[in-house]
Structure formats: C-alpha cells, structure tokens
C-alpha cells in the first residue's frame, strides 16, 4: 500500500514490516545464519515510520547502526536487505556491508553507519547540496540520544543553522547509549533543548505515537523546504531488545526488567491498532490479514537470502574505487 493511497494502512504495514523483519532476525541470528552484529529497532518503529511518511522518494535520510527501520520506512527492498544481513552476493552491498552499512542512494538512503554521530555531518552536507542545487529536497538525519554528545552533532547543527539548510535532525531518544542511561551521559532531559544554543526550533514528542511523529516531522519538513532551515525533533522511545542481539540477557545488566515491560505496554503498533479500530473501523480480521501478508514478505526475504549465493572471493577486491556503479 502506498503512502498516497492510504496513509493509515501504510503506517500500519510499515511498522509491521519493521517489527516482523526484526523478529525474524532474532531467530536467524540465534541460529547462526547471520554473522556480525544485529542492533534491533523493535519498540521504536513509529519514529522511522512517522518521519519517513513525510518524505518524497527523492528526499534523503542518513541512518545509524540501528538502521533496519529507517531503511524499510524509506522504501528499502526487504530481499536485498535480508540478503545483505546474510552476507550474500544479492544483498544491497554485495555482502560487504552487513547490517550496519545498508545504503540505497536510488531512494535517498545515504547509508546506515557504524560510527555513532557519523551520519550527522553527512546529512548536513546532503542538505547543503540540495540547497546549492536548488533541488527542493530535504534530509532527515536519524540518530540516538547518546550520539548527541558527539562533536559532530554540535558542529553540524550549528553549520546547518547558520546556512539555513533543509535538514531535520530526528533524535531517537531510547534513553540509553549501550549501557549508559541518559541521566548518566547528559545533564538534560530533553535533547531538543539544545536547539536553543543553535538558534533553531526544537520539539519533544512521543516517539511511540506514529501520528505525532508524522505531524511534528511534517511541519519541520515543510519549514525546511521553504528555506527556513533546520529543526530538531526529539522522539522519546525505548528499545525492547539488548543493545545488539549479543548483549547478555537483552540488556538486563543495566536495565530493570520492569522498565522493559512497562515500555512494552506502550507498543507503538498495538497503540496504532487501537486507533485504527476506534477511528477507522479496522477489525482484528484486517489486522490478521495484513500481518499474514507482511509475514509472507519476510519469509520470502529469508528464502531469497538463504538461497542466494555467497559473493565470489574477488568481490572482496572490487569497489575500493568507483567504477561507474553496479545497478
């Protein structure tokens, strides 16, 4: 379902795609089918979904190590994503990037990023480029609460502010940088407050409410497109899993299980289902049907990934320099 035809259905399907894609990762990772690191986004689906709902295909995003949700919401191909996670030749990066480095510039995904804060200047540069090219594109820059302590955050936002660049800094405040709670990594509660220091607007919203995310980011996007410069939108949310799938006991070393349970009760998908039921006449049957449809897409993606060939060894030596593109 496309955004333009039926936005509510798109919200629902997109959040479910992210959720079921990642629930599948839990399984394949545990079975050793996926090498490397898997940082899951479960619980935070409303942020990527609400934010990307406001974008055109030609607009840009920069993503993070926790990037599957951003990629799916921006229109990433599930087969190529899953194949990349498996390290296969048919993956987005020919098996050379993995979970932390998926990119698809044809739909404006300028890359997940293994370096915390690494995407923030890149988003700023993409916005600078749009301004110079007068292309009317905007960029959404996703990053976590802990990334807002990098110099790259402060330097970039100041830069963007001074040059009125069309970029929206979307903070996914899930309250932790690995094991360190926000209260132990910064002396503020709202990262959006930092906007004041750069003379731009900052807003705090409920990141588990897809409609609120869409509204706030949508306004910031409109502002950016009309030449009024950048904004910070801070989305309060929570990651249900450990920092990555290898994090012992899903992060129980530094988190109270009760806290995790409380946040599970605020599930962005369950919440949106409630809304669809009461405001748009959805029924459990429609949810079930949608879920089955999405689940099938995920199973297909796994089958595609599983049956795809490994990259030939010479692929390791290619692409150090650009050879004109491969797609």
């Amino acid at each position, binding site marked *: 379902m496309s955004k333009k035809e039926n936005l509510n259905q798109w919200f629902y399907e997109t959040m479910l795609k992210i959720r079921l894609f990642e629930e599948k990762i839990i399984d394949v990772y545990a079975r050793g089918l996926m*090498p*490397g*690191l898997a940082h899951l986004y479960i619980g935070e689906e409303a942020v990527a979904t609400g934010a990307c709902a406001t974008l055109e295909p030609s607009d840009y995003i920069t993503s993070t190590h926790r990037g599957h949700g951003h990629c799916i919401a921006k229109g990433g191909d599930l087969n190529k994503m899953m194949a*990349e996670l498996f*390290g*296969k030749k048919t993956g987005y*990066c020919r*098996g*050379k*990037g*993995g979970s*932390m*480095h998926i990119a698809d510039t044809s739909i404006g995904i300028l890359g997940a*990023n*293994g*370096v*915390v*804060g*690494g995407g923030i200047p890149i988003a700023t540069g993409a916005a600078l480029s749009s301004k110079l090219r007068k292309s009317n594109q905007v960029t959404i820059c996703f990053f976590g609460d*802990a*990334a807002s*302590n*990098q*110099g790259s955050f402060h330097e970039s936002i100041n830069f963007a502010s001074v040059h009125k660049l069309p970029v929206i800094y979307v903070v996914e405040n899930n309250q932790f*940088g*690995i*094991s*360190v709670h926000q209260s*132990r*990594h*910064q002396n503020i509660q709202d990262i959006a407050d930092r906007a004041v220091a750069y003379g731009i607007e900052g807003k705090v919203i409920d990141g588990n409410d897809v409609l609120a995310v869409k509204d706030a980011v949508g306004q910031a996007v409109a502002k950016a497109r009309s030449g009024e410069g950048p904004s910070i939108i801070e989305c309060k949310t929570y990651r249900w899993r450990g920092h990555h799938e290898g994090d012992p006991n899903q992060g129980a*070393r*530094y988190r109270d299980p009760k806290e995790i349970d409380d946040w599970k009760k605020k599930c962005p998908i369950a919440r949106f289902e409630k809304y669809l039921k009461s405001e748009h006449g959805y029924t459990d049957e429609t949810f079930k049907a949608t879920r089955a449809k999405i689940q099938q897409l995920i199973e297909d993606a796994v089958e595609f990934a599983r049956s795809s060939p*490994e*990259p030939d*060894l010479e*692929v*390791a*030596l290619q692409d*150090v320099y650009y050879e004109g593109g491969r797609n």
Partner: protein
Amino acid sequence: MAQMKLVEALNSALREEMERDERVFVLGEDVGLYGGIFGVTQGLYKQFGPERVIDTPISEAAIAGAAVGAAVTGMRPVAEIMFIDFITIAMDQLVNQAAKMCYMFGGNVSVPMVIRVPAGTGRSAAAQHSQSLEAWLMHIPGLKVVCPSTPYDAKGLLKSAIRDDNPVVFIENKITYNLSGEVPDEDYTIPIGKADIKREGQDVTLLATGNMVHYSLKAADELQQEGISCEVIDPRTLRPIDYETIINSVVKTSRLAIVQEACRTAGPGCEFAATVQERAFDYLDAPIIQIAGMDVPIPFNPKLEKTVVPSVEQIVREVKALF
C-alpha cells in the same frame, strides 16, 4: 603462575595498578557498570567506584582530551576507545596535543596516559569496526605504541604503559582476548620497546604482531615439517621498535617475512622492511617480503573477511617461496 585469558590478564593489570597508585583511573564508554564491551574492565566499577571508573558520554575527542588534561595535572588516566576505528575522532588530542607537549614545551611537561584500543578483524564487524590502524600511530614521534599478543605480555606491558610518563597507545587484538596463557602471580612488568623471540629458528625470521603471531607460530610448525626452521619474533612495541633483536635474528637467518593484518601500503611492514634492508642488506639471501592485509576496507561476509587478511596457509606458501 596462573592460567588466564588475555582479557583477564589486562583486567588484573588494571586492578593491580589502580590498587598500587591512586592516580590511576579508567575512563571510556561502557567501561563502568557494563565492564567494557569486551569485558576488560569487568568488576573495576564495583571495586573502585564511579569516580575512578568513569562511564563517559560517546565523545571520543573529549575522552582522549580529558585524559591529556588529567595526565598533565598529576593523574594517570587509562582511557578506552571502544574500537580503534574511532580513534580517528580522538586524533587531534592524541597527535597534535598529547604527542607534542613534552617536546613543544621544552621537556617540561609529561603526559602519562594510556589509550587502550581493541583492533583487528575476525568478528564480521565490517569496515568501520575491524581496522588495524597501528601505522597511523607509529608515524607520530612522541607516542609509544604497544601491541601484545599473549596474556603474559599483555599484563606486563599494560603495567609498563601505565607507569610510563608518556602517552602510550595500547592496541589489543580482539581475537586474542580469549586466548589463554600463563601469567605470574607476582607483580612484574615487561619493558616497552623490547621484542620477544616467540620461537627460535635458523632459516627465516617471521616478524608478526597481534593475532598474526599465533598464525606465524602455526605456520612455523608446518614449515618445520618441510625442513624450514622459522624464528618468530613479536616486536610487542611498534614505537619505539627493538631493531637490535630483529637485526640479530635476520643476521642469523638471512631471510625476513613480515606478517601483518594491517593493509600493505604504508603499513608497519614498510617501516620494518626499510630499516632492516638498510642495516642488514649484506646478510639477506632473499628479498624481504610482506605478508599483509590487502589494500581494501574489511568486508562483512566472513569468507571475504578471511581472504583479505593473511592466513596460516598463505604464510606457509609465501615463506616456502623464499627458498
């Protein structure tokens, strides 16, 4: 003697130095409550508290810089940068500040700090979490660069690094963390700048660091079966380099193969090869070879990852070709 893993050897070095000297403290991302993502600082937070085992924000420039500032004012910080790849963010403080101060200020300032950095491949962590950037650091006068390969060396060298009055970058090969070995119960140090002969031999010298020491030792076993006797040397310190031990070995064996995970161009091997040929040219019976990582970023796929760094098989093959 106790049998312990390299990660435990590092942990006990930190613990003992913190017990011995109140000026020693640890800072870095997730080093406290979590005990470090590779477990090197496990238990220290509990024993020494949050003032001496500091969980920092994700701010590598500030972590390195805070270590510099603390070091010049009487403390002995041991900072952890979670992966060597992120040392790039800390480079100004390390290269332009820490490494220069003693010299620039006429020898009046000491910067007794350690930056610990996990490095290397083997975990499918891809291009931004797998690099071997030691050559960047070796290039800087004023820094010392240490790179142990066994639990015994790791503990003794970390103690020396902490007691040193200069900035030391301490490179820990991730794959060696779980390697076990004997470590003395009593306090000991290993001098910085002293190589170790890990295996004696007659026919060829293999010079290797980190995990490549272990690959070279395996290759030496195989080569022995074919009648080639390898001497395996671990320089242990990459700046300053113990050329005496290396040259003496090459004078004896007449052949040198450098084995490194770092990519080849302008890597550590270039330094070794250049200096050895300058000082021992007349003793060499074959060109010095570098068995090095390929000049590519590290790929994610585990099979590709393996192909871009040296293997035991490759070492055996290339060393055999010297005869």
